[in-house]
Structure formats: C-alpha cells, structure tokens
C-alpha cells in the first residue's frame, strides 16, 4: 500500500519533459518533490505564478509571494507573475499539460466530485472547476476508500460534481487505474496489494485485463 508520498512519487512518473503542471492542494503538492532526473517541468499556481519554487527560507518569506494554497513560496529563475485572467487563460486554453488534484469521489465515466458535501459548510470550488473542465490530462491523487472504508471509485458520484467526463487516470494508495469507456481499468498494483483487494475496494465497474504488474518506485 502507498502512503501519500508514495502516491505522489508514482504520479511524478507521469511527468514528461517540457510539461507545465498545475498541482492541487494536499497530496498533489508533494508531486513536486519527485520530479524524475533528466526532465524539466515548470509548476503553475493559478493565483498567478509560473516557475514556482520550493518554500522560502525564513529570510525569503514574502507576503506578496504565495501559492494557491496560500502558502509562502519562492520563484525560480525564468518565473513570471501574471493576473488571474491570464492564469486561467493558460488553464482553459490548455497550455498546462498536466493537472493533479484530489477528489472525494470519482465515477467510472470520469466524473469528479471534490468541492461540496451537502449539509456541511461549503468553502467553494476555487479553481477546480476551471481546471477539470479544461485540462486534457487530469490525474487524481486520493485514497481508494474514505474514512468509513467505502469506495471512492463509483458507478456514479453521489456528491455534487466538480466536472463531468474529465478524469483520465487515478493513482490511489492501492494502485493505478485508467478511466475510459465507462470503466476503471486497473493498470498497476501498489506494492503488497492484490487484484482482489482492488476489486473489493472499487464500487464502480472495474476491468482487469491480463496480468497486472506491481508498480515500480525508484
């Protein structure tokens, strides 16, 4: 089974040289720590920076330099700042090649729900709806089941949607699954996880085609 860092590490294998990448809050943020050697990517944060760097040292902290999670950050050489319309122009215009975000639920059609739980305080969707409606290459990072042990990979989402038919791939603590043709297609198992464990934890239609390899993490 993977922990949060393991999920991030596996997702980082999806990065390709030259990608501009938007990372959501939580597990997705950790992906930046595992960029494979020999490839160059740049991170975009939708509040208006391209070329986002690591957290600052104490003396670098600047209230005018934060990420979408409102954390203080730094800018790398070659960075640029821009306004929110330009930022979402990049996103809607599909200039960002990979988007990683978390989810509460996913459906076998690629629908995603990650912003609202009826009856609870709703904080808002932030930029998530723009991201999922626009990007071609959306990867979800999440636990396979919720705290109650129920599957988050469903036939249909029960929560209000963030976007429809948009997620192509999900990396969970149990494995890697592609989403296409109305089903979850199991591609890789997390270390120590069996196909049966995935079957038990997946409520939506699951396709297991041939031998499923266990993922390789460096």
């Amino acid at each position, binding site marked *: 089974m993977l922990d949060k860092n393991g999920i991030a590490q596996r997702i980082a294998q999806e990065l390709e040289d030259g990608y501009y990448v938007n990372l959501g809050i939580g597990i997705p943020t950790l992906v930046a720590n595992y960029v494979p050697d020999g490839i160059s990517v740049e991170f975009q944060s939708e509040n208006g920076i391209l070329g986002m760097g690591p957290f*600052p040292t104490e003396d670098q902290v600047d209230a005018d330099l*934060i990420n979408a999670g409102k954390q203080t950050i730094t800018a790398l050489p070659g960075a640029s700042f821009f*306004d*929110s*319309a330009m930022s979402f122009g990049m996103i*809607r215009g599909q200039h960002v090649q990979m988007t990683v975000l978390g989810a509460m639920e996913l459906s076998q059609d690629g629908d995603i729900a990650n912003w609202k739980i009826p009856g609870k305080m709703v904080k808002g*969707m932030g930029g998530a709806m723009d991201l999922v*409606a626009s990007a071609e290459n959306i990867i979800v990072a999440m636990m396979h089941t919720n705290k109650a042990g129920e599957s988050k990979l469903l036939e249909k989402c029960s929560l*209000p949607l963030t976007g429809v038919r948009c997620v192509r791939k999900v990396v969970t603590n149990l494995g890697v699954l592609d989403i296409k043709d109305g089903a979850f297609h199991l591609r890789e198992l997390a270390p120590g996880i069996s196909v049966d464990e995935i079957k038990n934890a997946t409520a939506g239609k699951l396709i297991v085609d041939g031998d499923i390899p266990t993922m390789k993490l460096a």
Partner: protein
Amino acid sequence: MIRKVVKNAEEAVQGLKDNMTLMLGGFGLSGIPENSILAIRSNGAKNLTCISNNAGVDDFGLGLLLQTRQIKKMISSYVGENDLFEKLMLSGELEVDLIPQGTLAERCRAAGAGIPAFFTPAGYGTEVAEGKEVRYFNDKPHILEHAFEADFAFVKAWKGDEAGNLIFKGTARNFNPLMAMAGKITVAEVEELVPAGELDPNFIHTPGIFVQRIFQGVNYEKRIEKRTVRS
C-alpha cells in the same frame, strides 16, 4: 495630467452607499486593499454585495465588514478560513454565490473590456451551470457567463503614479488588474505613490485610464495566512 490623487482612504470611498456592489482585489490575504476596507467600515454603508475571490479571515480583510454586518452577499470562489462567515451563512444572514475562480476572473475582465458575455467550459454539468445556456464548440460543452457590474472597485497595488498607472508585485497582482478595469469608480491604494513619469510606461500593469481615485496607503500589515518555510 488628469487629477486622480485623493488624500486618503476616507476621501477615496466618498459616494459609497447602501446596496452598492463592490469588487475587492486580492487572493487570500495577499494584495487586498487594506486601507479601503477600513474606510468602508468607517463609511458604514450596508447591504453591500462584495465580489472578491475570498472573504478574508475573522479579524482581517473582508472579515472586518462581516463583523459589522455590512455585507449582504458575497460573490467568491473560496470562502473558508472564517468562522463568522460560516455562522452568518448558515443562519441565512449572508448570501453566498460561489463561482469558479477562472470564471470569476473572466467576468471581471469582461466587465472592464465591454464584453457582455462569453462561453466557458468551467462548471458544465455541475450546479454552477443550472439555468445557464449550454452550447457546444468543437464538440465540447460550454456555458454562457455574463460580465459583472460594480459600482466601486477597490484594488491594492505596489506602486502607482499620479496618472493612475499601477504596478503590482508578485502574486499580489491576482484579481487586482481585472477589477481595476471593471469598477464604475475604481479606487487604487498603493504602497508607494510617485509623480507621473517615474514609472516606465512599458511596464505598467494597469493603465491610468481605469483608475478614478488613487492614494498612498498607510500602515500595511500584509498578513500572511500560511507562513510555510523550508527546514
């Protein structure tokens, strides 16, 4: 030189009245018009509709106008981080309209640029799209969104000149230049106000034409919401 400089925030908010719609720049607590918010509180106008990506925290930013119950409605993309907000929202004292962040930004720009409506894919198939026109372009569904209208826009810049030109710093730029375009009256507060001619005309973020009133702000707190440092 067209005269735009006002003495302070109090003078800048003159004409602000009950039931008006305001835009306020900033993302989180970064780049928010701190001085103007205090002056709006002193002004006392009530039943305000505020278009702002966030709603501040309990004791800073727009949270201050929630304390005084001056805000009737918030139009935002994300409103966490605020206990009073939650209480007012759940009790029905505060209306909240949640909008995808990119749509929020584009609706501000559209207002300033004379584009009354545009199509965007964001929110299709979600409750955001309810009641909105759907149209397919290149086989992809989009929804029609409209420009905002705002009586006042309050923005915060790093530097400004007496001609109303503005320069923002880092990610404190965010919604500020878009809202500056969109206000019937746009008020800019700046950390440093310089004479016209001191800013390089090649590197102006907001041309002065969009700014009706400008003043040098004081006592900037520039609070940091999540100070995160490298170990």
